[in-house]
């Protein structure tokens, strides 16, 4: 195998793991060492990793470490989205953790380890690597979801995510075993080579294999009907973790889904395309309808994140270069608006806790116009209203689906987003068109990191809205993936 010694492909991951170990050692050597330096170390590691990953941008794709990982532009783009989500979540974390006495080094170490799992998933070119990466990110996230362990909801979030996550890992592993049974290899590039010459034509369990893989990865991407854990986990987890889980995990899961289905199993597209199309339609329609009934803003955003998984799924169903580019573009915009929206929930305080009930948002736009306007910007972007990045992200996804002769998908998706627009805009209506209660002065969280994260997210949402061509051309450069 060429490039076996090229371990430098994983330099970004090594930096992040190194920083995680450093954080744990600092914590062990200086007990009770708390403060902003933990977040600073985390941020520096994530930024350094992003810069190191840039080295692989535009270069020829090559396999490394015995074919376990691949360095290509697709991996770099997906890593940037994941690292960006990690960095934004890190910015929001200190302001949330400190008042709750949770700002321990373990939190940042776990965040870095979860990020490592996700970026490894983005560059994995072997099903074994896919599995290890998913386990790494999951184990870290299970703990992070229950980090506020005094709270009952946090325990519920962690427990549910853990039990269902372990279950879905078994599905994924079973699928990997079937693929191995049919092809005799777990390497994605070799699987493609074998499948493209009809090597799987006689393998009657190929459909089962693809179904099991789709279940395993669909769980991590939180697509209906594998979404059951999502609302409870997102609601119970500390909000910075929720933002991180929602944004980064989805990007990583879809990167893996694209690599496994579009890159290595195009020969079986008649097996997986209709199934995935059904899942995406179910995801968009179901999540949009259920979200309407939510009164808890965090839960509403959880269902909204589920429905976004459906939109990215449409781009995967298209199974073309423009589909992959649209998926990457969508994930980029989605990351910014998700972190922005959850960040806004953290920003609006109610006493010492967050403002989660939608009725408590009435008049927020009158008392805190700037913050409420930013929250409305993220909501409008999620709804896909034109001057924002969310509109273009959906546009490119629909365009890719139509070009792939799947025009019925955008039709259903548009119907779904009309339903979804209702609950996004309802929050804006409550904020700006209802009178504020006189006994509530609606304080904002003073944390500077949180404001910075919301500001950066808003810039990305507006930037992708004004210059979508620039970001799309980056995403298109990242579609030549796999050697």
């Amino acid at each position, binding site marked *: 195998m060429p490039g076996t*010694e090229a371990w430098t492909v994983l330099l970004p991951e090594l930096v992040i793991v190194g920083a995680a*170990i450093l954080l*744990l*050692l600092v*914590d*062990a*050597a200086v*007990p009770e060492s708390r403060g902003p330096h933990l977040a600073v170390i985390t941020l520096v590691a994530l930024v350094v990793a992003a810069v190191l990953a840039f080295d692989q941008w535009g270069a020829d794709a090559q396999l490394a470490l015995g074919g376990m990982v691949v360095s290509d532009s697709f991996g770099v783009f997906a890593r940037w989205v994941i690292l960006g989500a990690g960095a934004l979540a890190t910015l929001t974390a200190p302001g949330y953790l400190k008042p709750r006495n949770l700002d321990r080094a373990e939190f940042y170490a776990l965040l870095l380890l979860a990020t490592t799992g996700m970026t490894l998933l983005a560059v994995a070119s072997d099903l074994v690597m896919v599995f290890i990466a998913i386990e790494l990110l999951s184990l870290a996230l299970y703990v992070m979801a229950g980090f506020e362990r005094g709270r009952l909801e946090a325990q519920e979030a962690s427990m549910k995510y853990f039990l269902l996550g372990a279950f879905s890992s078994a599905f994924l592993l079973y699928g990997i075993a079937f693929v191995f049974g049919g092809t005799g290899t777990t390497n994605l590039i070799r699987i493609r080579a074998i499948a493209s010459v009809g090597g799987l034509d*006689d393998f*009657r369990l190929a459909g089962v294999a693809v179904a099991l893989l789709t279940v395993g990865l669909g769980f991590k991407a939180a697509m209906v009907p594998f979404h059951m854990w999502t609302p409870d986990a997102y609601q119970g987890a500390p909000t910075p973790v929720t933002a991180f889980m929602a944004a980064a995990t989805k990007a990583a899961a879809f990167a893996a889904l694209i690599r496994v289905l579009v890159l290595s199993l195009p020969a079986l597209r008649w097996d997986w395309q209709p199934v995935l199309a059904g899942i995406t339609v179910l995801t968009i329609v179901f999540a949009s309808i259920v979200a309407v009934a939510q009164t808890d803003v965090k839960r509403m955003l959880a269902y909204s994140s589920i429905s976004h998984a459906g939109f990215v799924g449409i781009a995967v169903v298209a199974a073309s270069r423009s589909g992959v580019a649209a998926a990457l573009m969508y994930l980029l915009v989605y990351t910014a608006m998700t972190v922005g929206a959850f960040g806004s929930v953290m920003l609006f305080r109610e006493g010492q806790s967050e403002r989660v009930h939608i009725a408590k948002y009435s008049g927020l736009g009158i008392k805190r116009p700037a913050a409420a306007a930013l929250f409305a910007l993220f909501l409008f972007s999620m709804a896909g209203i034109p001057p924002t990045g969310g509109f273009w992200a959906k546009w490119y996804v629909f365009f890719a689906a139509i070009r792939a002769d799947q025009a019925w998908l955008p039709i259903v998706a548009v119907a779904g987003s009309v339903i979804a627009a209702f609950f996004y805009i309802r929050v804006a209506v409550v904020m700006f068109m209802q009178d504020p209660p006189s006994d509530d002065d609606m304080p904002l969280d003073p944390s500077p990191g949180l404001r910075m994260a919301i500001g950066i997210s808003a810039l990305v949402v507006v930037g992708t809205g004004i210059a979508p061509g620039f970001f799309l051309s980056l995403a298109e450069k990242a579609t030549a993936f796999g050697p």
Partner: protein
Amino acid sequence: MTDYYVSYAAVALLAVVILLFGVGTFAAWRLLRPQRPNWEKLSIYECGIDAVGESWKQPNVRYYIFAFLFVVFDVEALFLFPWAVTYEQLGLFAVVEMILFVVILFFGLAYAWGRRVLEWA
């Protein structure tokens, strides 16, 4: 292609044999043995010593640390043995890799130590 599935028939056959063996053995015991129960016979067998308390007892939560550390060092040994057999062929790269691996595990131990996990208090 049917050969492929036939080759798995042995697995199914084995499962049936195992099931029959288990059920059959217990059934044969029941038919053949004399039944004269007394208190001694009905008590729980635990290495010949009288069992203390009920089996539904909550173990001390601190044991999970030992379970963790055990797994860590067990896995280390798992990797060290095959490495020790072949490292001469693999050369310097393998030595450096293994040193890194052990050092990272050592960091884990140092972290556990620093968090006073190793003290029973």
